[in-house]
């Protein structure tokens, strides 16, 4: 399988990258790890004439702090995020999702920026980012802008990123004490598998260690985009953490899900799986929030 021909650009700064992107318009594509882009190009689905590599730009491969938030660099790989010590508390959701993506070889290349811009409904890093209330930081010809991730995803493979814009980071609230995360993925096999259903959960506890101050549940592969479950959040806020509250939230999540039937599983089965995985992910998040 041969790749179509293209020129390769290695800009040294975000400004330079925007310039190259501006020059070549829809003939240009950004490449990070290439695990989505190169596959699409080999399959003949895409044939950009210009690839813009991000490896020459400093600062896109670290987790930085900014006024109470963490800024996750778009070029961080799934492997780096899975092993990161900075993603504690609820932010652990991203590390857990990253750890379950693809295979070791894919994780060593796949970046979080690529995962977000590819915007698959089951993307293993997108579902966790939703429960963290992540914002996409974009740079473009008209200056920088921020967009909450749930407004960024528009459909399978479609995002609110304009052509010519670059994702420069993902901003998350700084991990809080008494918070924890859970992640559950069901596939037909354990590795190298896009999820049949994946669920991320995060819980923030009140200082009493029992009452749920806030909780979020996000669902993958059950709608055209990775989605938050407002029903689950409402069922959990202010409740006492435990099996009963989690079961109610799981039911609400299954109601919110809008699955379709495909070769991986039927809609009805997916709804059942959402319930089971939501319960498990919440249990995991609770234990983590308690520091266990």
């Amino acid at each position, binding site marked *: 399988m041969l790749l179509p021909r293209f020129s390769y650009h290695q800009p040294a700064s975000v400004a330079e990258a925007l310039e190259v992107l501006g020059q070549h318009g829809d003939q240009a594509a950004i490449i990070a790890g290439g695990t989505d882009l190169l596959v699409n190009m080999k399959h003949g689905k895409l044939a950009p004439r210009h*690839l813009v590599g991000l490896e020459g730009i400093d600062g896109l491969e670290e987790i930085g702090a900014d006024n109470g938030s963490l800024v996750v660099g778009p070029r961080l790989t799934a*492997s780096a995020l899975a092993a990161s010590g900075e993603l504690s508390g609820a932010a652990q959701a991203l590390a857990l999702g990253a750890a379950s993506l693809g*295979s070791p070889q*894919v994780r060593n290349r796949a970046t979080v920026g690529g995962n977000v811009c590819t915007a698959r409904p089951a993307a293993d890093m997108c579902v966790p980012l939703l429960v963290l209330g992540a914002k996409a930081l974009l740079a473009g010809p008209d200056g920088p802008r921020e967009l909450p991730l749930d407004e960024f995803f528009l459909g399978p493979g479609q995002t609110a990123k304009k052509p010519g814009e670059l994702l420069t980071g993902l901003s998350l609230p700084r991990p809080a004490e008494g918070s924890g995360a859970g992640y559950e993925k069901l596939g037909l096999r354990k590795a190298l598998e896009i999820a049949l259903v994946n669920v991320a959960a995060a819980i923030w506890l009140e200082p009493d260690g029992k009452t749920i101050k806030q909780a979020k549940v996000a669902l993958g592969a059950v709608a055209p985009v990775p989605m938050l479950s407002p029903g689950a959040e409402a069922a959990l806020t202010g409740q006492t953490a435990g099996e009963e509250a989690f079961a109610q939230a799981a039911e609400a999540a299954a109601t919110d899900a809008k699955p379709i039937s495909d070769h991986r599983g039927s809609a009805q089965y997916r709804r059942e799986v959402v319930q089971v995985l939501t319960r498990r992910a919440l249990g995991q998040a609770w234990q983590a929030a308690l520091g266990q």
Partner: protein
Amino acid sequence: MDKMRIVLTVNGQDHELLAAPNRTLAQTLREDLELTGTKQGCEVGDCGSCTVLMDGEPVNSCLVLAVQASGKAITTIEGVAEGNQLHPVQDAMVEHGAVQCGFCTPGMVLSAVSLLDKVPDPGDGEIRQALSGNLCRCTGYQKIVEAVQDAASKMERS
């Protein structure tokens, strides 16, 4: 589509090459450097037969552009043995009958070598996890896992 000057350090040796941007690392290793131990199966990241180590970490060389690998240290299967002295993982694979058709073997060995570099005494689960990106259509994996366990214990003792 101008060719680009790249430097690949392959098995400890520097190679300066002119690479077309659309050449993958796998193609460059096999066709330009004639290191055909790296296999190509699916060519889209699913099988792991093209696994090489890039700065010590396993990657699918079919999904890395040669220009993206410039400046990196690459280990291929040709760089694992020392002269005629097989690496303990290779020895154990032979001893345990973990090689049948052999197509997956180079990638399998590199994933295992990279694991043992980091985790000298891995459990069964860790081994299976580390090899989860390498598909084998022949052996059923059991003998490969046993070979890696055996290699780990021999390396610990030596």
